[in-house]
């Protein structure tokens, strides 16, 4: 009857909700509510509530298809990395800061850098980067005006209560995203030229997210609004420690977004890919295509706590413990440092062993933790909240073709991690349902250049011709896919 309790953080997104993970004596995992967590008061969204499923598939070590212990996997990884050229390393922030730092050390000894997979950082000048962070959630509650470019209900659910609190405090909320939001006072689909109509000032907050497929142009436009109005930008990110890995990144020269990495592999500019708890098969919108591209690599080395899709095609998998068992620090969208109660150091120890096999120094958790604190002091000291960057122009955004329908991804934690959810339907607007004569409870047929499929649908107030999906669909070719459905 012995139970082990871990205090941890939900791995679903950068809100970083506190929770308990309970392991019974047979290893079965369940969640419990950490009501004293100031981030979320123990409350969890659909994803957090389904964490036992997320944690039900631990990674298993392997070398060339055969099961393997850590030492053999590390040895195999070392022999593939020794002398390897055109190496890229990716860690999007699904693990602790300490493990990420260990990965950065490894990159140093391989003469390369760690990519965090978000193209916005590479494309925007470094002086903008401090503005691409979050703020204390209580600041959102105290804002006078809030403009949303996300759907908080689906994408970052624990922001909803902060927005409702802001509303009770008198804030005016505008949704400028794709779906109409119940909590917003107004829902407006705005072009960037219309942002001035929002009449924002220093007491306003703009909330958007930055993820591996965010268009840098959208962020430039928002930064211009910040520059013009003094409004604050609150940026949320999809991975539990996105904020941590972004703050830890040194220079951005040469860093790549995930799509650029995939392009690099296609072109042969990248021949070896090392992944730390980051799965391009999950992260790319077209699963089949991602697998095809990754198969072109000479070496695919995975260091991971989860048995995710990429593990099946990896040459080497070095298995580490689940996130909740790891010893280490995570930084949430508010910039809050949160410590796991777990004591596991498998990941750091494996990377240290790998480093030594590559002829560089080994390291341990304590050193990585020390480095984190030095770096954090640096970033705090260099924090500069005044907008001092210059106005940035964007190319013109291609206008949507009249009459064309698009299938658009609404990224959410289930989608990023290919986790099952009860969202096997698309969102359509009522006029489309009417014009297609769709039956209540029936399906809609979607055709793209990749194929066709029938999907259940829900009626939602979305722009005409837009079809939204919260799960990846096999007919999608990108985050936005042209659909040739009858009536479009």
């Amino acid at each position, binding site marked *: *009857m*012995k*139970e082990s*309790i871990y*205090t941890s953080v939900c791995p679903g997104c950068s809100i970083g909700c506190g929770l*308990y993970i*309970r392991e019974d004596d047979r290893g079965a995992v369940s969640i*419990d*509510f*950490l*009501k*004293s*967590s*100031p981030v*979320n*008061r*123990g*409350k*969890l*969204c*659909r994803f*957090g*509530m389904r964490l036992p499923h997320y944690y039900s598939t631990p990674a298993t070590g392997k070398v060339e298809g055969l099961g393997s212990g850590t030492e053999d996997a590390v040895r195999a990884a070392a022999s593939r990395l020794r002398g390897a050229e055109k190496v890229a390393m990716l860690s999007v922030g699904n693990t602790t800061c300490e493990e990420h730092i260990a990965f950065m050390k490894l990159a140093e000894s391989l003469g390369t850098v760690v990519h965090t997979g978000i193209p916005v950082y590479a494309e925007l000048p470094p002086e903008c980067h401090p503005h691409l962070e979050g703020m204390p959630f209580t600041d959102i509650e105290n804002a006078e005006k809030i403009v949303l470019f996300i759907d908080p*209900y*689906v994408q970052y*659910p*624990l922001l*909803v*209560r902060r927005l*409702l*609190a802001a509303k009770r405090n008198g804030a005016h909320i505008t949704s400028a995203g794709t779906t109409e939001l*119940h*909590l917003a006072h107004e829902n407006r689909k705005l072009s960037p030229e219309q942002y001035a109509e929002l009449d924002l000032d220093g007491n306003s907050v703009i909330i958007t997210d930055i993820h591996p497929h965010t268009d840098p142009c959208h962020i430039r436009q928002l930064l211009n609004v910040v520059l013009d109005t003094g409004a604050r930008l609150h940026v949320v990110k999809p991975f539990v420690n996105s904020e941590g890995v972004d703050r830890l990144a040194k220079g951005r020269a040469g860093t790549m977004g995930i799509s650029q990495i995939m392009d690099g592999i296609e072109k042969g500019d990248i021949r070896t890919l090392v992944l730390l708890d980051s799965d391009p098969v999950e992260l790319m919108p077209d699963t089949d295509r991602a697998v095809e591209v990754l198969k072109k690599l000479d070496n695919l080395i995975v260091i991971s706590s989860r048995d995710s899709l990429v593990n099946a095609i990896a040459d080497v998998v070095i298995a580490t413990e689940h996130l909740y068992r790891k010893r280490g620090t995570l930084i949430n969208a508010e910039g809050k440092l949160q410590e796991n109660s777990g004591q596991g150091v498998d990941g750091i120890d494996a990377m240290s062993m790998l480093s030594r096999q590559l002829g560089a120094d080994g390291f341990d958790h304590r050193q990585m933790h020390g480095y984190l604190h030095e770096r954090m002091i640096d970033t705090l000291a260099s924090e500069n909240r005044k907008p001092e960057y210059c106005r940035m122009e964007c190319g013109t955004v291609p206008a949507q073709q009249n009459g064309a329908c698009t299938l658009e991804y609404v990224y959410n934690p289930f989608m990023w991690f290919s986790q099952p959810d*009860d*969202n*096997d*339907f698309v969102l359509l607007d009522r006029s489309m349902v009417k014009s297609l004569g769709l039956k*209540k409870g029936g399906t809609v047929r979607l055709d793209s250049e990749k194929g066709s499929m029938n999907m*259940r*649908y*829900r*009626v939602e107030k979305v722009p005409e011709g837009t079809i939204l999906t919260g799960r990846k669909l096999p007919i999608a070719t990108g985050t936005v896919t042209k659909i040739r459905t009858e009536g479009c």
Partner: protein
Amino acid sequence: MVKVGDRLLGYATDPDVRSRGASGGLVTAVLAAALEKGLVEGVVVLKRMDEYEAIPVITDDVQEVLASGGSMHAVPVNLAKHAVGRKIAMPGKPCDVRGVIEQAKRNGVDLESTYIVGLNCGGTMHPVVTREMLVRMYEIDPEDVSGEEIEKGKLIFRTKDGEEKAIPIDDLEEAGYGRRENCRYCTVKIPTSADLACGNWGVIGELAGNATFCEVMNEKGKRLLDNAIEAGFVDVRPADEKAIAIREKVNSAMLSLGSEWKEKVFTEMPDQERLSYYMEQFADCIHCGACKEVCPVCTCGEDSKCTMFHSLADNYRMSMYHMVRLLHLSDSCIGCGQCSDVCPVDIPVTSIFRRFADPAQKKRNYEPGMDLTRPPFLEVMLK
């Protein structure tokens, strides 16, 4: 040997357990003795993380039970679901106990092998609200707190340097702090459906603060207490008339205060507004399912009525999930507050469910969780 119906004053014989205990350590000692002597295989204890945080765990280690004493007023957990499918002893506030009884009516818990040591309860507070209250109302750093207690309607916090500050609970609640809303109108303060009903009301004079008032509610309660006395874990003596009267008096005062709160929270609602009230209240729901997961009276498990009829693809203005749950729980909701506590979008789920269930329960004179012999009015009783 004690008798069913006995009202006693007692305490743990071990001075450490007695001093660590909330009033006399009797509850801890009774639970530990049940485990030590093999009445049960495990005990539900609160594993203390800090002053404002604890998590229920099941242990078969007597020492861990003995170390678990003390009342945590800022830990609004519910322990009922920990009794499901196990042979355990547990402490329990009235809402914990009532949850177990409702589970037992549906064969979720086997009461023959579950022992419940009930605790009187004036209410619990949310830990985050408590921290904020300490800063704003008490001007105390939450990290400096070394203990708290409730005495004569005041909430008292002690700091590590020995200072004490007391503020009337009414004042705290007026300012939006204090007990969770559902605790303010909770209708059961003494858990008479437990095996033993323990508390500090009625403990006066030299025993105040270091003895526990304990009423033996049934044969299992007698077995529990006899076992602890025989094992040498507790000492008891009969409570005198004065002690009994004081306990009764405080209980009725608390219940009438609760009725006042109930009137304040559940204002009349015209019939024509009801439907839009329910729809509007649930409009921000993200269907995380947490309110069902934590509900101590819900015995359905994975295949439940409310989830079976619900689909995220539906276009109902109020989801089938809530429509079914409101109806399904109208005979068993005990107003424990867990659903509101965990709702990620801060929907006041408890008050919505109470508003729906209260008239139905009142009409049938049915108080869930109080009487194992009364079947729920919507279901066939399995027990």
